[in-house]
């Protein structure tokens, strides 16, 4: 029986949208995962992917059509061995008159095979019951998160605690969603929000993602409420680079980066100056027994900080493998909440962009963040004479409520020799 492709709902409130473009023509073969067409609402465009394979038998709604109702049949897919004559038995366009109307029987039969892999909660008509645990509801209310925007990963798509935590950390919910949502291009958002501000040049408004909101909230809170101070130290890298080259030449199984050395050096330095491995709470200072190092990783639309647990107990190869694995999965949005929550100290490295030196904002509730710059040849004075060395500047941002200047300095004094004489990391 031919498979109907229905107009998907991009949000719970969406009742209609525009069919912008067909990526397949009638007679084209369609593989599962192929983009079939593009749909647009006032907020976003969405690519509709095929779940089943077959031949695109007939396009029911031409491209460029506005006001296509949700659940209307937009095309029919023919399975192996079927020819176009089968389409006559397929249902004619059956627009859903109202979101609450029962689907036509034919549509109901075809439902399991329909290629609209929109997450269940998002497809629910507005006013339908939303399934969320009591704890998830309370956490969402506290964090100001709209449950309608969340995909539930619990039983039967129920929204549970981990989904809220995922959304808070940047919308990395674990549920697989086959629809790629992109911000609408300028043409789709012709009305800027601040229309009265005529002095602005033309612009495009990009709606905030959850991650953007979290980044904005947490870092504003950090910079406004935490008394930051900054300590900078220059570290000579030549020994480290030589050791790195030597280690990396021994095997193809790993490729240790400078940052991996920095992670280990920070963990070991925290072991020597445990007062810096701390966190402020209203009732008391938490002093951690191990260094769980958060690594800032840039991902599309923001950043996330996967954590290397107890990094001081791990060797360079283990750290390197872990960071590579988590950073890769972070970019794919596949980190589990326990992999990016917690952490006692953060490292932010912009060396790969050639940044010489910068000051980072503390990642609350942690007390310290180390901003790592690029290693570059610089003039240094050695034995009273000018010489050239590869130098990397690191700036520690410190929460003065927890860590005083002398303690921060002691941390850097422990960190610097580990970087400059990396063999001492073996000790």
């Amino acid at each position: 029986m031919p498979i109907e492709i229905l107009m998907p709902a991009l949000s719970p409130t969406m009742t209609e949208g525009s069919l912008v473009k067909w990526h397949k023509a009638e007679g084209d073969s369609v593989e599962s995962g192929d983009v079939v067409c593009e749909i647009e609402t006032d907020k976003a465009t969405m690519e509709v992917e095929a779940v089943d394979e077959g031949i695109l038998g007939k396009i029911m709604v031409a491209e460029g059509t506005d006001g296509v109702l949700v659940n209307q049949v937009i095309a029919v897919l023919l399975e192996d061995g079927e020819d176009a004559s089968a389409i006559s038995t397929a249902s004619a366009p059956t627009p859903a008159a109202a979101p609450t109307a029962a689907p036509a029987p034919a549509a109901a039969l075809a439902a399991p095979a329909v290629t609209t892999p929109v997450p269940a909660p998002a497809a629910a008509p507005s006013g339908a019951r939303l399934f969320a645990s009591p704890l998830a509801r309370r956490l969402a209310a506290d964090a100001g998160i709209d449950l309608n925007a969340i995909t539930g990963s619990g039983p039967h798509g129920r929204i549970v605690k981990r989904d809220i935590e995922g959304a808070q950390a940047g919308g990395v919910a674990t549920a697989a969603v086959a629809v790629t949502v992109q911000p609408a291009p300028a043409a789709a958002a012709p009305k800027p929000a601040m229309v009265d501000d005529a002095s602005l040049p033309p612009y495009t408004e990009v709606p905030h993602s959850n991650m953007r909101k979290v980044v904005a909230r947490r870092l504003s809170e950090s910079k406004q409420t935490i008394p930051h101070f900054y300590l900078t130290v220059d570290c000579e890298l030549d020994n480290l680079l030589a050791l790195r080259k030597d280690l990396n030449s021994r095997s193809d199984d790993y490729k240790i980066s400078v940052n991996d050395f920095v992670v280990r050096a920070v963990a070991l330095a925290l072991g020597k100056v445990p007062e810096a491995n701390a966190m402020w709470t209203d009732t008391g200072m938490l002093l951690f027994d191990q260094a769980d190092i958060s690594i800032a990783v840039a991902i599309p639309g923001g950043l996330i900080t996967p954590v290397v647990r107890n990094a001081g107990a791990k060797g360079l190869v283990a750290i390197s493998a872990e960071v590579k694995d988590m950073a890769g999965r972070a970019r794919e949005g596949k980190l589990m909440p326990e992999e990016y929550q917690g952490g006692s100290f953060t490292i932010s490295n912009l060396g790969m962009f050639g940044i010489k030196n910068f000051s980072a904002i503390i990642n609350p509730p942690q007390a310290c963040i180390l901003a790592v710059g690029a290693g570059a040849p610089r003039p240094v004075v050695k034995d009273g004479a000018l010489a050239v060395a590869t130098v990397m500047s690191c700036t520690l941002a410190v929460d003065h409520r927890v860590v005083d200047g002398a303690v921060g300095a002691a941390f850097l004094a422990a960190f610097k020799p580990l970087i400059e004489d990396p063999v001492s990391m073996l000790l």
Partner: protein
Amino acid sequence: MSDSNFDVVIIGAGPGGYVTAIRGAQLGLKVAVVEKQHLGGICLNWGCIPTKALLRSAEIYHYMHNAGDYGLAAKEISFDLAAIVKRSRGVSAKLSKGVGFLLKKNKVTVVDGEARLNGPGKVDVSKDGKAVSTLTAKHIIIATGARPRELPGLEADGKLVWSYFEALVPETMPKSLLVIGSGAIGIEFASFYRTMGAEVTVVEVMKQVLPVEDAEIAALARKSFEKQGMRIMTDAKVAKLDKATNSVTATIETADGKSETITVDRVISAVGVVGNIENIGLETTKIKTDRGCIVADGLSRTDEPGIYAIGDVAGPPMLAHKAEHEGVICVEAIAGLDVHPIDKAKIPGCTYCHPQIASVGLNEAAAKLAGRDIRVGRFPFMANGKAVALGEADGLVKTIFNAKTGELLGAHMVGAEVTEMIQGYVVAMGLETTEEDLMHTVFPHPTLSEMMHEAVLDAYDRAIHT
């Protein structure tokens, strides 16, 4: 497909292995389970189940002694140890047979013998040292369980120093007994033997008995044990055992540097269990181990693709119900179902001594250590009508909530029948209820479970009966 090729081969038919096998079969997988000794494993044959049978005898014996409290009279109270043991063995045998029936009903192939991995995808089976067959499978699940931990100098010898194997089948009732270790296993045996009349000394190296439990609950339990005549030494260590023909003299060192010797008929060594990772061919794979257990992720995957580890051998908490649940998730993931890793913070634990102990989630100290702002509720048994009517007025129900979100972080109980009640809180945690939902839940009257309601109310200063 030959008869030696399966979708899933499971090594070990303990509670983890056999439940996983049945779930796999339900999902349409072709499953074999290799077991070297008993269907049902340690749990059913030498652990959870036979100890419950012994403790039931002890409980009734205890009631008989206290018949007068209830206006009854029981004279010439005595027991037949051989009959108690026989009943316990009978219970195990019956249930083991039941497991065999269930596996057969679900068309799971049961292979009798010792399994050994032979690289990925292959399991060699031998019996009495002779090769029997080689099984091949896309997926292999290691469920080999654990065995008693042996400390140097305190090893069980089967005669004077017992592990749980010997402690389950005593031929004579020792007059005096030293139990090393006050975890669930040690305390349950201490409770059984004390109730049956032995002089029992328990030595625990940690600061409290039942070290994983909430400190307040453990302190109440200790008070009860001492009231029953048990001697409890915490912060203490058995330094050595000197064996005579029919007695053992133990040297016990306490934290304050003093040492003491006591002479007992028998010693039970209950210092924990270690994973069975030896002689199963791990060296033919990329599997990694850590502190005696196989390293596996939340879906029980090891470092060798296609090989999984569940239950005790995959690390703590070493509990039968954790093994079962882990196995089910593992095999459901193999079958392509959408699953989430087990949440270890929501695995309950039960100890069947008298009084019983049951708990789930974080204890008070752990919750504070995690930096949580918490609310703690408490409700004592003596304020509960049913408890007083039962003559079981000793005990406490304790709840721990996240003060900010109302999430139930933990629940801890000591007292009569608490092991049958804890699942109420486990369900509540699993469904992510908040204090509000629990407050709105109707608990039947008169039951012990009303204390679970009151302990929630008390966390928000709303308890009615205190």
